């Protein structure tokens, strides 16, 4: 047990360091960054914002991590967010309760995930393309539900999910931390984690070893769909309205970025959800730097690009291998796990 914790720490150390650096940067551009106080019933401060605004990405990258671990990718999550938000909104607008709305939204998310799963696992369409379909069409579906308008709602129950608080902590924060913890724990306490990694590394072998790769794949995309749906509901609740066209726009890229910053290989295999979550926070802190710096908006993208690049280079396998070579040897640290990445990219290719 203690060993497991230690292992986890060892695994997420680079991410923690980078996160610390990013927060420090915030502190430099805005000295009051770490200041938190309690205003009309809620914790109030930039740190809280980072946690709160990181929620959608964080939720997305829980599912995305699993998908990527199976050597897949899910471009549709942004669109699924929009659909789920729209569903929830239209349900409450039609006078249903917030719980019904939530369930309805999650259901649509599940359906979307299932669809992706079938395309990937059964029809054997390459994940990028398979999910591209829903990425394109999904937003349309969402707008179909809202008929192109921003569907505003006033249902307090639903709004609480996004803008409310629990014991002064914004609900969104509570949700993503709990879900993240739960999933991370679940995959490691059961054999799921290992089986998912196994099919991500070599599906042929895994099938021959008797793993039910199809069902597993479908489940993984389903989970991704559910996470996206939850994120969608939170985003909609946060602005008291479902904005079909903009909700979660391009957020899939942030989620994938978070997973990679979390040190997970896009080629599947070993994964760590916790690390991905930290990755999401890193991205959000970068956004926060941009907002607080007060630079004119035309610089946003350049700043973001440069910071992200820096981060990725720092933890790129090669660089960390050099690190590791400088520090004397130890049994199998990251480098040897990662350096041969291109390696596996290329074996067991059987089209």
């Amino acid at each position: 047990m203690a060993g497991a914790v230690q292992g986890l720490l060892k695994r997420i150390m680079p991410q923690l360091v980078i996160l610390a650096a990013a927060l420090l940067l915030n502190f430099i551009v805005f000295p009051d960054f770490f200041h938190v106080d309690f205003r009309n019933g809620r914790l109030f401060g930039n740190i809280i914002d980072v946690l709160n605004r990181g929620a959608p990405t964080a939720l997305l990258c829980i599912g995305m991590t699993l998908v990527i671990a199976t050597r897949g990718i899910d471009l549709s999550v942004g669109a699924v967010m929009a659909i789920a938000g729209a569903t929830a909104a239209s349900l409450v607008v039609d006078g249903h309760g917030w719980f019904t709305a939530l369930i309805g939204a999650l259901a649509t998310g599940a359906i979307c995930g299932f669809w992706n799963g079938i395309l990937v696992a059964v029809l054997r369409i390459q994940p990028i393309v398979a999910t591209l379909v829903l990425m394109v069409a999904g937003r349309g579906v969402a707008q179909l539900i809202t008929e192109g308008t921003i569907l505003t709602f006033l249902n307090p129950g639903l709004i609480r999910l996004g803008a409310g608080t629990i014991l002064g902590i914004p609900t969104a924060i509570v949700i993503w931390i709990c879900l993240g913890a739960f999933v991370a724990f679940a995959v490691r306490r059961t054999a799921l984690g290992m089986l998912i990694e196994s099919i991500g590394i070599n599906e042929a072998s895994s099938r021959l070893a008797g793993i039910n790769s199809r069902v597993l794949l479908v489940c993984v995309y389903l989970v991704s769909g559910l996470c996206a749906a939850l994120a969608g509901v939170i985003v909609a609740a946060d602005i008291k309205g479902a904005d079909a066209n903009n909700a979660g726009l391009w957020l899939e890229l942030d989620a994938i970025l978070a997973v990679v910053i979390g040190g997970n290989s896009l080629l599947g295999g070993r994964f760590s959800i916790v690390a991905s979550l930290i990755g999401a926070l890193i991205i959000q802190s970068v956004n926060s730097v941009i907002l607080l710096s007060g630079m004119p908006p035309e610089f946003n993208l350049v700043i973001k690009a440069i910071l992200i690049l820096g981060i990725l280079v720092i933890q790129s396998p090669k660089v960390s291998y050099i690190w590791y070579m400088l520090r004397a040897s130890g049994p199998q640290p990251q480098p040897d796990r990662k350096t041969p990445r291109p390696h596996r990219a290329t074996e067991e290719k059987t089209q």
Partner: protein
Amino acid sequence: ADLTIGFSQIGSESGWRAAETTVTKQQAEERGIDLKFADAQQKQENQIKAIRSFIAQGVDGILIAPVVATGWDEVLEEAKDADIPVVLMDRTVDAPDDLYLTAVTSDLVHEGNVAGQWLVDEVAGADCRVVELQGTTGSSPAIDRKTGFEQALEGHDNLEIVRSQTGDFTRSQGKVVMESFLKAEGGENICALYAHNDDMAVGAIQAIKEAGLKPGEDIKIVSIDAVPDAHLAIANGEMNATIELTPNMAGPALDAMEAYLADGTMPPKWIQTESKLYTAEDDNKAVYEMKKDLGY
């Protein structure tokens, strides 16, 4: 004879845009015009493709809501050659004006100007630190509405724009960015918010509330478009003013088109729609009821 008219719409990125589409379709229907609608998904190339297809199809006239001012000469020439009249909606293009019949637009700079003017009068000389929520970086509404607003503030040193960041014309970004403003400046040090569209303003209102301040009182809010939710907010005293950008550009446009096709009457090159200012004085409840079914 009932006409076939192609309409190349930018997309459906905002409530206002959706309303414009709805109204256009209604207008066409009333006139018994067969409207061919093409959504360009925010891409100029798609609009150009659409127009070319309209020409190939031999429609009687073309309506364009250009996504950007530049880059239309070539395709407009082709339309001219096929002598199909083109009417621009809600944005002019910088092409020789013999290439299109007329342009039905509001004056974006003017809108910003009205907003600025209102704020100047509102604060009446008192010092006021203003924060600005810009539209999508690079989009002409964002640029012009900024310019207009700044023009209005010129010479009024009591008004100062202390922070200006893009909120991408969306509610959620509006809220996020406003949150950061409130922290970076301190809510009590901000006296007014100028948002380039109502969606962002509505988002910002929520951020202000969550910060424990009273939108409309502690922080004055003026924005542009006059979408239903904005009227509602004004009615609830959470917002102070909005400048209307009418979604009904198609009415005048189609009138001009029909007249021209009927007997070649040349409309003026620019049909400006009015930029009406709505404040708490107006009966926003009523306006809301009236507008809320226009598909905003």
